[in-house]
């Protein structure tokens, strides 16, 4: 049965009523209207649903709501907006690093976790950090360039 739970999302506590064993992605998308995280596979295999939880890139499609507790969740919406984009989002726009864009949430959130740990990654670091994120449109070259651009602009 659904239970009331409080989740800390993008710096705010938010109450949701969901089943504790349901996956976080559905709470974010359906209960809270956060569409940044996208459903791709539901199996932890593609990365489209990635959010950052306490600094780590986590797949919300295989993360039950009951395991989150007081952890701090950041979604794509927590980074920036069209009017005020985060440096990573700005770099993706500058490099035009999207085609259909469905995978891009995962790419940016994985990159966010990477850059928070490793502000100046090598190209191989970037490829390694994103290796579990699938893009079917083949936007990979631009995604790598966008992350390099964001990193080079960081202090």
């Amino acid at each position, binding site marked *: 049965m659904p239970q009331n739970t409080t989740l800390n999302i993008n710096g705010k506590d938010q109450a949701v009523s969901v089943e504790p064993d349901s996956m976080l992605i559905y709470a974010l998308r359906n209960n809270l209207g956060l569409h940044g995280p996208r459903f791709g596979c539901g199996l932890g295999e593609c990365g489209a649903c990635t959010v950052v939880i306490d600094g780590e890139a986590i797949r919300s499609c295989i993360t039950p709501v009951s395991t989150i507790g007081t952890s701090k969740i950041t979604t794509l919406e927590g980074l920036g907006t069209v009017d005020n984009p985060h440096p990573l989002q700005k770099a*993706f726009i500058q490099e035009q690093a999207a085609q259909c864009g469905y995978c891009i949430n995962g790419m940016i959130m994985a990159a966010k976790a990477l850059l928070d740990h490793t502000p100046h990654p090598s190209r191989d670091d970037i490829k390694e950090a994103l290796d579990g994120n699938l893009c079917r449109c083949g936007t990979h070259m631009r995604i790598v360039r966008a992350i390099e651009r964001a990193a080079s602009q960081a202090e």
Partner: protein
Amino acid sequence: MKQNESGIGGAQLNRRGFLQASGGLVVAFSLFNATEIAVAEPAAGRSVASPPAGKLYAWLAVHPDNTATLFTGKVETGNGVLTALAQIAAEELDLPIDRLDVVMGTTSQTVDQGPSYGSMTVRYAGPQIRQAAAAGRQVLIDLAAKHFGVSSNQLVAREGTITILGSSDRSITYGKLVDGKRLDVDIGASGERFAMKVAPEARTKDPSTYTVVGKSVKRKDIPGKVTGEFTYVQDVKVDGMLHGRVVRPYGVESRLLSVDENGLKDIPGFVQVVRRENFLGVVAETEWGAIQAAEKLGSTLNPSGPDDGQAKWSNWNGLSPMDQIWDTLRQTAGINRSVASTGSVDIALASQSGGQVLKATYKTPFQMHGSIGPSCAIADVKSDRATLWSGTQMPHETRGDIAKILGIPLDDVELRWFEASGGYGRNGLDHSVADAAIMSQEVGRPVRVQWMRWDEHGWEPKGPPIVQDLLGIVDKDGNAIAWRHHMWVPTITDTHLIAPALIGKPDVTGITGTGATPVIRYVYTFDNTDVAVHDEGRVGLLTAWLRSPAQFETTFAMESFIDEMAVAAGQDPLAFRLAHIDDPRAIAVLKAAAEKYGWVSRPAGGKKLQGAGKPVQGRGIAWVNRDDVRVATIADVTVDPASGQIKVGRVVVAHDCGLVVNPDGLRNQVEGNVIQSLSRTLHEEVTFDRAHVTSRDWEGYPILRFSDIPDSIDVVLVNNTPQYPSYGAGEPATNPTAAVISNAVFDAVGVRLRQTPFRPERVKAAMG
């Protein structure tokens, strides 16, 4: 250009009112945020027929705030056509492109310009939109002439404002001129879809004066897509909507024997099972509830058999064994078509002596579209009308299909289009609309259906397997004198929908055939030629066009076998090709790629390996003429003999699609094509047992990852001049890749790979 009696009159609506009146449908970068997109039920009685193509308002609306909306029946699938079409319209309209929104696909608001496939959007819809926009500009000029009481040729339009020549203080914006009215002006249109001619009398600009077309304008959709503000079809929420999941048969043609509903009622939010013949689905108030209910009935990643879940299926095992699929294909091919025939290959064979006769067979497997987001649709079916929300690449056709399935007149069905995850052909998107429609009809509420990953991998229509036999003769002086290329290509235009077949109405929609799809463009000039297609074979799984349908595969065989001929002749593969081509645009792309790459003439290596040595490098070249676009690709590879791993280094692509609308957008497409086709070349093969597809997730169907990407992809644009029209660029650059890699591997290690994918085990086995 005549204005009709009502002038531009009609309902006075501001922009927001206009959009609401038209169903609240907005594209994602527009004024509304995602929560506002929740759309109320369509006003009963409101017409949902498509607008008449001969009216200006079918293409264009000008709003009081001096912005405008372009309406097009074409849709975005990630290729950037929204921005490209907006550039074409903005150019003719003399309106800044950031003041032009685009509404795509929604059937009540757009003209059917044909499906968005086959790289045909810019090529065919571009000119239609260009004419409509030019007509629009003329209408605005005429309005201004009336407003100022001057003649039209005293006026100049710039950036959305019309000014009297020589008196810059006398000007008026488009928005003020139109004053919130509908542009109810006859502009004329004839013909249908791709062949439609719009506003034939409108005078368009001289391409040499273009300032927006030809610029790398930033794509309109990308800011929303990188911030989560964009609304994909998967994000659409409709008031009162239930969540549905399908439970597909265990075997492709299994019959549904029984459904045990035990325990379903205990699932929070569960509403009901939908069962019609072999169609099975569940609906629930929550997505999680629907997923759990479907799982109980047997919708899981790896069901163990036809009675694994609470739904029991008949034991169907009608697929051919996986390794015999190409024999099945040869045996079932029904139609033989000659593509090219010159001289006589048989006489050349009989009369040649001392030359080399080469023979080879090339095989390619089932591959899938593999959209990252699974197919999703919403349907709200009432007794006498239906509203559909879909990301289909063919909104107007899908609307018609669903009307037939439901038995509702076409004019009472509306499809509201929202972009989906990239589709690359005909994936499951259309099928999910039928699923949603059937479930909504059953439960009497709007139903959102999203396929699970295994539904998508298992049931999306596949790009079909193809087998090809080639024969070539090189005479004793090293001249190529004969070429035979026979290909067995199954039905690739099978547009039957899954759900109607399951409810026992298999033929209410869809056709099976290859249609007019060109599967090869034969391009060489040998004296004796026999190129033929053996069409219409049946391969068991539903098939549909996958990016550059069949031509990706036929180019693989043709361009690899040309290399085999060059090796037999002892010649440089580029020089050998150039000697047997007379198409100037082909020669131009081959030379441009070679120049950029720094090609040094030498025969392909074919070095014999000395044991399991160090990684070896090679280079490969291939080209294609796909729908009048010429593409030549060169790549470096490194082959590790110990592992069989192929690593792609530098890639150079020379691309001639005529006048380029958006150079950076084109580069994005070319890079995407190269990477996706590399993935298809190196990794991808659908697996199946006798009952169903067994590669039902990304583990079973691996695609290219970041660790495999090339070091670089250089794109050279050839013939990018107004002398040529803008041919489409959505898929041509896919074609050469498999041959390029096969040729480069031969150059490196001397083994010829004739079957994709070139996975390490296969490469190692080939090296012996």
